[in-house]
């Protein structure tokens, strides 16, 4: 890759770190692993993103935010494509992302291999760290959340459910 293009690439990735998921405002779209491609040709940039869940309602909002952010870098033409077929997995969330989720008191998803099964549905309590917890329901306030209960600190908490 040409040096100038490489610099522009890095600039775009850096700018995207400032675009947050509106449903989880502590984590950026890059830490979520939903940016699948960045291309620079001349004075144009093209970013491809994927929804975590097919029906994610935040996708249009994030798309606008990404476009605005990249335009601020001075590109003449910025295109943001949505790849609805890319198989995003919670394994794509970066380690930094998982740490931020936990700090936000939102239990990060466990690492999964292959298809999820009921064995994957466990979470440590993000308030007290206890593993003495149980799944209340796999459907929460947004599509990506499951609701658990902690028997030690007696609090409900949410988990980014593994996918």
């Amino acid at each position, binding site marked *: 890759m040409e040096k100038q293009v490489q610099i522009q690439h890095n600039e775009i990735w850096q700018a995207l770190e400032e675009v947050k998921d509106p449903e989880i405002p502590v984590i950026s779209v890059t830490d979520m692993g939903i940016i699948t491609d960045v291309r620079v040709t001349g004075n144009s940039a093209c970013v491809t993103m994927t929804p975590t*869940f*097919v*029906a*994610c*309602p935040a996708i249009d909002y994030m798309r606008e935010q990404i476009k605005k952010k990249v335009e601020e870098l001075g590109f003449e033409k910025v295109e943001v494509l949505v790849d*609805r*077929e*890319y*198989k*995003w*997995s919670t394994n794509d969330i970066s380690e930094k992302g998982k740490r931020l989720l936990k700090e936000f008191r939102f239990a990060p998803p466990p690492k999964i291999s292959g*298809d*999820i099964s*009921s064995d994957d549905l466990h979470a440590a309590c993000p308030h007290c760290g206890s593993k003495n917890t149980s799944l*209340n*329901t*796999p*459907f*929460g*306030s947004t*599509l990506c959340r499951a*609701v658990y209960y902690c028997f030690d600190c007696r609090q409900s908490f949410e988990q980014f*459910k593994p*996918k």
Partner: protein
Amino acid sequence: MADDALILGHRNSEWTGLGPILEEDIAFSSMAQDKIGHAQALYAILHEEFGEPSPDKLVYDRDEKKFRCCHLTEMPNGEYDFSLVRHFFFDHAELCRYKLLEQSSQKRLAALAKKIRGELKYHVMHADTWLKKLAKADEESRSRILSSVKIVYPLALGIFEKSKWEDELMKKEIFRGEETLQKEWMRSIQPVLEESEIKLPNGKIQPAYGGRKGEHTGHLKPLLEEMREVYKLDPDAEW
């Protein structure tokens, strides 16, 4: 597939605010959102790859007779036991269908199938949990589940009605066919039914066919009218 997901998604959304407990209200609402998203992604493939009208046009401006959903999805929600048993039979079939489609020669469909299957897993887990619980909870819950199984089973068999494109889809290796799917489905539901001590109706059952040919129950039309009520006020409005 898209029409099944859209129509059952709409039915699921009718539980919003009415679920028997808060968690079930949220569960059916979340599954509604997932399913309508699946429908939208499928309509987008039809639009972009096969020249069909846009997803919005297909949903809001298509004649009822051009819908291909099976009768199972059209039926009103009834009481919770009916909705749960329908959800159980339908989502096991969906999970099996998308698993087969991961091998499809239609590349976009194959990719989408992988993405969607991770979501359907939660739908099936949810259905299995409640079916197993309620089939054994007490006399009333068990008798309600058993009577719903009797009513829903012939409707569920209608999922596997072949469309007129069945041979072509199989020849082009886009889909392995409804008979293969039905066998996979039976294999998938059997262990849950056994654990719940539920027996499927015996003898010759007439499946509820017609949906794949555009012949619908009287329940589809009012559903579509309600879905389109706001759109029809001003079809050219920008959202």
